[in-house]
């Protein structure tokens, strides 16, 4: 598999084009800029400066959910988990949001045709752009999303535009009941060439174990706590067979063969 080129990073004041609440927990920010957006690759992220910063000191690392180059819009799908994301959810249309982006590496260009993307919870966010991006290169893509309940299986029609959508919920209200690892698609490993996953660590560990057992190429996108986002402070490190590596700059995507869980 070939790593995609990492490009120049920018600090931009983006304009909030839309702020769409999906439910009590998730919202989407659609952001635009007077200049053309930079090249962005799947699983890259932005360090977002939270306006009205009271109580929020650092930027918030948020993965890129989608990019629409025709209308020059970049989308962030955000889960409200604390004060920072709460404040971001309240931002009004037309205001500006300062981003340092695009950051980190990306999922590799797969070397085989059948791609399974697995997302748990907010880990589904980067998979829409990942599906859009790799579909444009002719890959056959399935997206498997796991959530607690039906309400958090978001934007189903969007994902279906670029991939076959498979779902599972812990309470069985949508798709298969249980975790993503319980989904029947995994019972036919011969149909899967490559897996890219993003989500809670136990989910990624389980997927990594499955991929390893079935000899499937697998990369995961990690979400460690970060400060700088550009590889300078070494706060967000992941243990790998090559020592501690920064999730923000060496990652967020790592081949599972590299990771020491």
């Amino acid at each position, binding site marked *: 598999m070939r790593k995609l080129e990492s490009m*120049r*990073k*920018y*600090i931009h004041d983006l304009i909030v084009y839309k702020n769409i609440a999906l439910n009590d927990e998730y919202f989407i920010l659609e952001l635009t800029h007077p200049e053309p957006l930079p090249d962005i690759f799947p699983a890259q992220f932005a360090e977002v*400066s939270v306006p009205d910063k009271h*109580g*929020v*000191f*650092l*930027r918030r690392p948020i993965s890129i959910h989608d990019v629409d180059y025709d209308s020059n819009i970049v989308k962030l799908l955000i889960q409200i988990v604390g004060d920072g994301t709460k404040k971001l959810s309240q931002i009004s249309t037309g205001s500006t949001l300062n981003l*340092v982006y695009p950051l980190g590496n990306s999922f590799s260009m797969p070397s085989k045709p059948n791609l399974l993307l697995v997302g748990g919870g907010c880990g589904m966010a980067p998979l829409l752009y990942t599906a859009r991006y790799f579909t444009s290169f002719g890959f056959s893509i399935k997206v498997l999303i796991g959530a607690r309940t039906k309400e958090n299986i978001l934007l189903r029609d969007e994902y279906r535009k670029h991939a076959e959508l498979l779902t599972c919920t812990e309470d069985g209200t949508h798709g298969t009941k249980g975790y993503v690892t319980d989904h029947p698609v995994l019972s036919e490993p011969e149909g899967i060439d490559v897996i890219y996953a993003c989500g809670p660590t136990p989910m990624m560990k389980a997927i990594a174990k499955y991929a390893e057992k079935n000899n499937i190429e697998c990369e995961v996108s990690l979400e*460690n*706590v*970060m*400060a*700088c*986002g*550009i*590889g*300078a*402070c*070494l*706060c*967000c*490190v*992941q*243990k790998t067979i090559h*020592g*501690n590596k920064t999730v923000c*700059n060496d990652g967020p995507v790592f081949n599972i063969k590299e990771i020491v869980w």
Partner: protein
Amino acid sequence: MVDLSINFNGLMLRNPVLTASGTFGYGEEFADFIDLNLLGGFIVKGTTLLPREGNNYPRMAETPMGMLNAVGLQNKGVEYFCSVIYPRIKHFNTNILVNLSGSQISDYVQGAEILNELEAIPAIELNISCPNVKEGGMAFGTSCASAAHVVKEVRSVYRKHLMVKLSPNVTDIAEIAKSVEAEGADSVSLINTLLGMAVDVNTRKPKLSTITGGLSGPAVKPVAVRMVWQVYKAVKIPVCGLGGIMNASDAIEFILAGASCIQVGTANFIDPAVTMKIIDGISEYCYKNNVNKISELTGALAMN
């Protein structure tokens, strides 16, 4: 035209703005955002004689107006710096300082000997104040005798500008400053991070793998300004001030309290281009206040 240049005890700075070790990588990480050549200088990641993996994750916790870190001097060692990183950064037309740390005196001495040979490194910042390593680090910087000892040994092999970075985790920082001055330090920088701790009340676990870590950011600024003022009054060598500087006004505050130059640290995470704004802001302040030379402002407190 305001003259921002500083003769920092022989180290010529085009302006008083440097970047703090551990917050600025090796400079290259910021090259997309700023022209590094416009800085007074930058101080690279804490470097030790031998490679260090640093502490376990989690290494960082956000706190009110600041953050705790427990990176623990992760770096690939002096030799790697010299052979791999130095050739990549030596062309920058600014002062590149290496922050040198160690767990025993011989580490510091050997490291300093090697760094002394690097033409494009005009100074080292001797780190006797890292709170995140089990051995050495801050242990050297918290007593006058041990601080003096390590500076004396390094001074005997290092021929260029020797800056010593002081710990705020002491009873009397001015005494430590005097003891390193007496052993030949060319300057002091202060403050390193304040030892702190944060707990997740839901899990009841400390937020850092090491339990305690170093606090930085605006939360520490008043402590840092106070210490700069105390040290400025106690020693003749110049002081480089740091601790929570977010903007030009903060920088001027340190300068008025006695700093000849300053370092920008944690603010680089909030705005990777903040150093340029601080340089411009210092110029603007001087212009508005009829200050022709920034060096005139050092210690220029108007006392009540």
